[in-house]
């Protein structure tokens, strides 16, 4: 068992090192990274996620274009804290650090590369359990609302020249987000549970170019996830999710920006690792199976995420 754990950790670490000086493109995956569970009273949950997002695929609408000239890579470190204020209320903070890289395989096989690093944006979310699970009914339904705060820089420059929005570590805007989570287990002791999650982010505008005149707004984002969890008596649990993601087109000066926005359908297989009752991990990959994009865009080829979660009951501790 130890060997398996060490192998998985090495896999993640080796990948990270290989691309350490490379970086990312299309922003921190804040919305998709919000932990699904809604928290328990007095319990502090800590989560640390490393997310590796490789963008090498060019699509026009839903049509794949064979273009190997460019690549984006986004690596994110996300730290999530959730605390259960009561049996029904919980509060979550999600903080990010993002590293982005743009690589162009250009003229004469030369490579042009731009990298940016920085603190990303943060999310604060208040959650409320509408339905609490119990021994008889293992159903949980929670909703939440919150704010995305632009803690990341949105004006990173390269030799004095402003870099594009998707190479900035932050979005520059305060955004409102809504969140809902549903899970259902099956008694008496079925290993299978079903999960569903909805997140929606309404973005506001910001002054991208300076001058306090012109406004840039990233498109609103909707994420719907649904799937199955399978519990075992071993170290490993398994999950398989289907995720639909839609982003509206970005807007600048009330005009839609071409080649932004679209819809994606992903399959997300995952392995959960139960180190102890309080300490767990998750390795998952997000694999796009369908895209329908506005115009022509470089888009995600795959993502790999590794998370570690630690929970402790503070009410017992103090």
């Amino acid at each position, binding site marked *: 068992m130890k060997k398996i754990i060490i192998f998985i*950790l090495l896999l993640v670490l080796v990948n*990270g090192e290989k691309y*350490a000086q490379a970086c990312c493109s299309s922003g921190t995956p804040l919305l998709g990274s919000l932990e699904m569970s809604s928290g328990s009273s007095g319990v502090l949950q800590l989560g*640390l996620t*490393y997310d590796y997002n490789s963008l090498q695929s*060019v699509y*026009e609408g839903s049509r794949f*274009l*064979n*273009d190997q*000239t*460019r690549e984006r890579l986004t690596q994110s*470190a996300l*730290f999530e804290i959730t605390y259960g204020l009561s049996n029904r209320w919980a509060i979550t903070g999600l903080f990010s*650090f993002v*590293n982005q890289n*743009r690589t*162009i395989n*250009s*003229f004469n096989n*030369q490579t*042009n*590369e*731009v*990298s*940016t*690093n*920085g*603190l990303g944006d943060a999310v604060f979310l208040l959650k409320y359990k509408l339905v609490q699970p119990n021994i008889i009914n293992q159903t949980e339904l929670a909703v939440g609302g919150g704010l995305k705060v632009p803690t990341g*820089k949105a004006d*990173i*420059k*390269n*030799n*004095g*020249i*402003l*870099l*594009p929005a*998707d*190479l900035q*570590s932050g979005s520059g805007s305060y955004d409102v987000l809504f969140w809902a989570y549903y899970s259902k287990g099956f008694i008496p002791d079925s290993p299978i549970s079903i999960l569903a999650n909805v997140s929606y982010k309404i973005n506001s505008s910001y002054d991208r*170019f300076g*001058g306090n005149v*012109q406004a840039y707004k990233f498109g609103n984002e909707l994420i719907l996830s649904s799937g199955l969890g399978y519990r075992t008596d071993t170290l490993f649990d398994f999950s398989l999710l289907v995720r639909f993601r839609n982003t509206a087109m970005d807007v*600048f*000066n*009330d*005009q*839609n*920006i*071409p*080649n932004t926005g679209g819809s994606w359908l992903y399959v997300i297989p995952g392995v959960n690792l139960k*180190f*102890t009752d309080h*300490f767990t991990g998750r390795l998952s990959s997000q694999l796009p199976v369908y895209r329908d994009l506005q*115009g*022509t865009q470089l888009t995600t080829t795959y993502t790999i995420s590794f998370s*570690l979660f*630690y929970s402790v009951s503070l009410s017992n501790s103090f």
Partner: protein
Amino acid sequence: MFRKYLAITLILFLLPVWWGCEESESSSSPDLSDNPPEWLIPTNEIFDGGPGKDGIPALTTPEMANAGTISYLNDNDLVIATKLDGEVRIYPHKILDWHEIINDVINDHRFAITYCPLTGSGISYDRVLNGRVTTFGVSGLLYNTNLIPYDRATNSNWSQMKMMSVNGDLIGQTADTFPIIETTWGNLKSFYTEAKVVTTNTGHSRNYNRFPYGDYKTNHNFLLFPVSHKDDRLPRKERVLGIFHNGVAKAFRFSSNTLSLIESNVGGTNIVVVVSKNDNLIMAYQPELVNGEKVSLSVDNNSLPVIMKDENNNEYDIFGTVVSGPAEGERLKSVTQFIAYWFAWAAFYPETSLQ
């Protein structure tokens, strides 16, 4: 066992923090690091357009075919054409919208057709810089939302519409240009059947039947990047012929539906502008042959591609070449000119007059 897991957790937590502290909130780029930081244009008005250096791939001596065999163009599609040593070559906007620069050669004339779809400006740059042959690429940077090409000999950046190197070893050097015209495919295809036209077999996977920027060409409210100077005399996306000569800028509108000749003066030099809105033609010439002979030009209607004649019964085609008459083979002196969207011309040449 638990301590081991905790230790691994801490290591994994600290790794990204360390990684972040190395170069927090910063950027690095070999794109520009080889260039001196001095620019002739304000750096806060230069923007990275997104695709990156060479992210929009310039073409070099692309595949061409005779005009008679080209089927991907519609009659109303705009094209850029050049005529050098009697050979006509045609560079459709449909290709240039996606590649912005086509490096080409006709005999010993080495040139780069540069075209910015965001400013609607097409200019043919001489690819011989200080005796050295080079090619141009797309830097990925924009000034006044206009293309900044770079030359691959010195990595110097050029402002397309200023026609000047604005950064790098050649900073301050003005570009030598070749005359081109911009008109519709329909105008050219029937008169220049032997002309060579760039095909869609460019080696890149693009949908050349789709304009990459939505309704940008016709939506006057839509700019992708800020410009330094706004001028409301005309709608933003109206195409004008801009002439910059001896430090004086003047723009000409498609002011006549039928073929007409406008006599004007720019920077102390007499010019004639031939314009036809119906034919989507507008070009300027000096009323003087390259051999120094001054001529008196008048419009020759309904004879395309012949558009002018002179007092010596010389007939001139749209490239300003004498195609029949005693001076056949001669050519009118050109004047530095290009078509662009009004907003862009006015941003680059805010003192421009308008006719």
